[in-house]
């Protein structure tokens, strides 16, 4: 067993035993949902249905229903695609990168963060499949034997890299998540077995794939988790780098910048952690998980938010500086137009939400306050949405030919689809919170002795007694 420095704050609060951990995390699955769950669920489903209707309308009539035009060919669709994909990145970062760095605080939050990743990528996929205009032909995106002579997909294109990156990212995240869920489904299954609930036992037996918790299973499980984390780490960096190359490899002023890959990755982690904070703050309260998802966990995430937010800030400022320093007229104009043109409000909204507001987390009082964290996490998510809007719309709406200059305004259909994806995200997340173990309970048990509050206190008392002798 690893011993942990007494200086570190406990990660599991209260006088918990192994049995308590199972019981606490199984409670939302075994119990009945309260009134609030039903209210939020109903709202989410209705929003989802509305979005679904807008989607059906778009498919039926075509993407002419959107506000995008010849000059602004990418707008709301790609803004939302990049926003959702970015949100997903925190889940992989928490479960993979923090696993490689042996950060124990990840254990209470990795399950729900990974779930968030998967649901966010599903939302992103809606936009990227819809923006092609004829989504029923989207299988053309994949290389397959065809009747076009056979003309293949173009592997020189970043858009093609994106197809491979996003689909690999989704499927690997799903596998990583499910492999981790198997032992916990086993624990839930055995609880229903002891209670004699045959139907639920059967459901969770199927989900648990017959997990037994044998030494061999555990030894292989740990190896698989480690290698999958090692594979997911470069994968998560590659995904948003490739998304940024969709822009960076073009010659559009404001897009053609070499700092895009690291800048996009930092931004993705930034927005993802903000979304994890938003979700966990609600979840810990609604499911009474305050002993497991502690203030310390939220503080750690806020520290990452300051770091990535500052990286994003530095990127914004260097972009701005280089547009002047390069002496390129078009670059200079693109940035001047962002800050003072007709979309000035989106630029300054982005600057305020992403660069200034997270700096408040330097104050310990603010980063350990639940309300401040909740408010700022939403502010960051709004800011990161504006970032993508600024990059895409302001760069396109005034291109090289002034006769092409135009404005972009979203239509109610586009807004409906976006709101619908938020509804879909929450619908799936709420179902997840009631049927899946939302915390990796087997992982949490393995750190109870080193990081549990009562164990740490006991060790501190023993040490005191020794020094007295």
């Amino acid at each position: 067993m690893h011993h942990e420095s007494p200086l570190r704050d406990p990660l599991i609060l209260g006088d918990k035993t192994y049995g308590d951990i199972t019981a606490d995390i199984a409670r939302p699955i075994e119990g009945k949902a309260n009134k609030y769950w039903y209210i939020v669920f109903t709202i989410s489903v209705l929003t989802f249905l509305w979005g679904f209707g807008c989607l059906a309308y778009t498919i039926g009539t075509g993407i002419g229903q959107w506000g995008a035009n010849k000059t602004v060919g990418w707008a709301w669709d790609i803004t939302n695609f990049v926003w959702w994909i970015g949100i997903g990145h925190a889940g992989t970062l928490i479960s993979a990168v923090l696993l490689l760095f042996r950060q124990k605080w990840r254990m209470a939050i990795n399950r729900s963060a990974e779930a968030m990743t998967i649901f966010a990528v599903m939302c992103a996929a809606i936009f990227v499949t819809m923006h092609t205009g004829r989504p029923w032909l989207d299988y053309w995106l994949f290389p397959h034997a065809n009747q076009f002579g056979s003309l293949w997909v173009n592997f020189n294109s970043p858009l093609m890299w994106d197809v491979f990156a996003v689909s690999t990212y989704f499927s690997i995240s799903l596998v990583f998540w499910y492999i981790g869920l198997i032992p916990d489904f086993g624990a839930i299954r055995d609880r229903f077995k002891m209670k004699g609930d045959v139907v639920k036992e059967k459901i969770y037996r199927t989900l648990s794939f017959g997990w037994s918790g044998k030494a061999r299973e555990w030894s292989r499980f740990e190896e698989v988790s480690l290698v999958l984390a090692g594979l997911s780490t470069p994968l998560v960096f590659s995904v948003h780098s490739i998304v940024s190359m969709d822009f960076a490899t073009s010659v559009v002023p404001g897009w053609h910048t070499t700092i895009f890959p690291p800048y996009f990755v930092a931004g993705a982690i930034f927005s993802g952690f903000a979304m994890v904070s938003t979700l966990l703050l609600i979840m810990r309260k609604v499911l009474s998980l305050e002993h497991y998802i502690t203030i310390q966990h939220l503080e750690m995430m806020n520290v990452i938010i300051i770091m990535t937010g500052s990286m994003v800030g530095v990127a914004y400022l260097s972009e701005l500086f280089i547009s002047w320093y390069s002496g390129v007229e078009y670059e200079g104009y693109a940035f001047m137009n962002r800050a003072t043109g007709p979309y000035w409000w989106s630029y300054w909204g982005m600057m305020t939400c992403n660069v200034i507001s997270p700096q408040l987390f330097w104050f310990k009082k603010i980063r350990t306050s639940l309300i401040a964290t909740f408010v700022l996490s939403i502010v960051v998510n709004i800011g990161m949405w504006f970032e993508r809007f600024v990059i895409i719309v302001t760069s396109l709406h005034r291109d090289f030919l002034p006769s092409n200059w135009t404005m972009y305004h979203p239509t109610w259909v586009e807004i409906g689809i976006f709101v619908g994806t938020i509804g879909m995200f929450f619908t799936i997340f709420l179902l997840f919170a009631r049927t899946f173990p939302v915390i990796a309970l087997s992982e949490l048990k393995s750190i109870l002795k080193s990081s549990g509050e009562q164990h740490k206190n006991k060790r501190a008392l023993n040490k005191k007694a020794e020094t007295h002798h």
Partner: protein
Amino acid sequence: MATKTIYGIYDDEELLVEGAKKLKAARIRVKDVFSPFPIHGIDPIIGVPRTRLAICAFIYGITGTSLAILMTWFMMVSDWPTDVGGKPSMYYYMNWPAFIPVTFELTVFCAGHGMAITYLLRCWLLPGVSPKNPDPRTTDDKFMMQIDARPEQEAEIANILRSTGASEVTIH
């Protein structure tokens, strides 16, 4: 003379490790250990060899790399070479940097999925498979050792289990 199965249940994983060490010293083989979370250090005591899954992942990864190179070469260079934006693909080396992202993604895809599938098959974890843990409490808060014993060993094993802190010892 049929062998019997002895189950020793512990409330604490450290006690179980001590018990396993004592059994090993007495040259008694522990058949298996069931626990709610991985017990670090138990594998060498009960003779579980180090898994070779990582080697599998490496092989699957290399396979993915090769497939990706073959695919991009065939589609971009051999079957229908194109000249996009003045960047012709007459030979693989001309455009290979552009093929790296897809090659990387396919490497990760094959390594990750291949390893996951091998893991599930090797542990025989599939939908519909019945769990093999003899006591449902071992996924909650109990740690169980399973020992196959000849009848004359029974008493000795039960004694070692109890003396190292096993809370329950049952013989089947």
